């Protein structure tokens, strides 16, 4: 293991690597169709040059639209160094959606996206506060959204310190070496992408190759030749199916969603070491990682304590990686985090001190692309398009399936999947592709419910024969 150590800030991490490994490659990026390299020393210099410019902005909170580029990482590092609360935004969202998220998190300015910065200026006017950064001695806060722009989406307040600790915990169980190249394919506005696609490698002195976006998922592995990569299950399935795995790749870290066994099997058959991780935005990413034969039985990271409540819920205690709370939402924070213990909403069991996740207590569907759907909210939106219909959404193989009861099957010949599809089409177009209904099942039996009227989603999933 190469110099595994704890850091309390990104800049401390950067300085340490720049001093220890000044001429070693920190990043591989694409420049004019070729792989270009940035050393640790050059990265530190780029941050130092940017910090003075950033300080001139005033205000105390800045946003970065995370397109995965080198300048995006540089902007985040410089803002944190300058003491700005930094909000990480999803590059696939529309300008209206981004403005909505910035409004909810009191963003003063946007760094690295002039068009969006202009829109924010038009909306909010000039920054009145002439001070720069938060001026506090505490660690800089970084806000991650739990999912898109739904009403259930929350901004989780993490810090440089919690994120650095998360990288330490991951590296402790699953170290990368200085010879490794970690390919960063996942968006940095997701905590799994930020920690496991970037910090995990960078903090240990490995090289981080910055993926070139969706259009290059088919050739990024052959272009950068990584030895390790962090992926969501769906992405790994895609890489395997299309034979996109490069010969140098030896380690795959899967996270952010349930992974079907056949995908893990497929990766192992290619000779890859596969580790499966469990974590939440609220815990700054990884809580436990599988290291052995059973991919779903996970060793708990050193800073974490895990217990199972009487009703089977996974409870997490931690002092180094835990969120400060949900931004401006003390009620939800108190509901999730009491006496320092996080109520995850996930169900699990402990086997010889190792964690196995068995299901979900909350009505949240975690999709195979790592995104989440809050089912009651999703179904309320569908109900507007399907008035009077009895229906439910559940997850099958990591995708949302819609089950609709054909209550008047004798006189309602027109109810078929295509008809329903047309009714919900405009709503689907507003959703990210992975969250759109994958299959519509018209069923001739009433939806299975509990005595209190709750839909038994598990039975629906099992009864796909409908």
């Amino acid at each position, binding site marked *: 293991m190469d110099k595994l150590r704890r850091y309390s800030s990104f800049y401390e991490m950067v300085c340490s690597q720049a001093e220890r490994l000044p001429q070693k490659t920190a990043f591989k990026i694409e420049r004019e169709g070729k792989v270009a390299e940035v050393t640790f020393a050059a990265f530190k210099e780029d941050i130092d040059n940017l910090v003075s410019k950033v300080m001139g902005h005033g205000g105390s909170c800045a946003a970065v639209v995370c397109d995965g580029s080198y300048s995006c990482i540089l902007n985040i590092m410089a803002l944190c160094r300058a003491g700005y609360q930094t909000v990480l935004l999803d590059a696939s969202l529309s300008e209206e959606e981004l403005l909505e998220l910035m409004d909810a998190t009191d963003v003063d300015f946007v760094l690295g996206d002039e068009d969006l910065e202009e829109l924010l200026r038009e909306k909010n006017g000039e920054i009145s506060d002439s001070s720069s950064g938060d001026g506090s001695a505490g660690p800089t806060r970084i806000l991650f959204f739990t999912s898109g722009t739904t009403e259930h989406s929350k901004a989780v307040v993490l810090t440089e310190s919690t994120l650095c600790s998360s990288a330490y915990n991951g590296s402790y169980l699953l170290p990368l070496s200085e010879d490794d190249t970690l390919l960063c394919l996942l968006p940095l506005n997701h905590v799994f992408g930020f920690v496991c696609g970037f910090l995990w490698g960078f903090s240990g002195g490995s090289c981080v190759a910055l993926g070139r976006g969706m259009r290059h998922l088919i050739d990024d592995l052959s272009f950068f030749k990584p030895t390790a990569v962090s992926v969501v299950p769906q992405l790994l399935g895609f890489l395997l199916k299309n034979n996109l795995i490069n010969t140098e790749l030896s380690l795959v870290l899967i996270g952010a969603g349930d992974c079907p066994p056949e995908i893990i099997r497929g990766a192992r058959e290619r000779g890859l070491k596969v580790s499966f991780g469990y974590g939440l935005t609220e815990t700054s990413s990884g809580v436990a990682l599988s290291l052995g034969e059973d991919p779903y039985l996970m060793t708990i990271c050193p800073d974490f304590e895990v217990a199972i409540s009487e009703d089977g819920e996974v409870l997490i205690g931690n002092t180094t990686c835990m969120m400060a709370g949900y931004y401006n939402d003390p009620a939800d924070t108190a509901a999730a985090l009491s006496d320092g213990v996080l109520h995850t909403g996930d169900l699990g069991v402990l086997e010889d001190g190792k964690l196995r996740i068995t299901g979900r207590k909350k009505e949240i569907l975690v999709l195979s692309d790592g995104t989440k759907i809050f089912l009651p909210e999703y179904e309320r939106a569908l109900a507007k398009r399907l008035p009077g219909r009895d229906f439910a959404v559940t997850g099958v193989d990591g995708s949302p399936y819609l089950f609709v009861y054909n209550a008047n099957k004798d006189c309602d010949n027109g109810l078929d999947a295509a008809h329903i599809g047309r009714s919900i089409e405009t709503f689907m177009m507003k959703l990210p*592709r992975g969250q759109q209904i994958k299959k519509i099942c018209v069923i001739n039996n009433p939806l299975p419910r509990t005595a209190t009227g709750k839909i038994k989603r598990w039975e629906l999933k099992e009864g796909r024969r409908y």
Partner: protein
Amino acid sequence: MENKKYTRAEILEITKEIIYESAPELEGKPLSEETVINTDTGIDSMGFTLIICRLEARFDVKIPDRQWKKLQSLSDVVTAIEKRL
């Protein structure tokens, strides 16, 4: 690259070819302009990404990322390409 003019029918045929090539499990399943990509074919968002990238390369066009989620049916895809040729 040669800027060939395609008819709508030709774009549809090439789109279908690329879908069959990218999702061989659909072989034998008829595809038409009315086919809804998500619910009728079972192609997931990654598979869709692959198809759009191949179509963009084939027709030398670029469909902006933020438009992708609006492409529900094959007809939407064909129209998006047609507009950019």
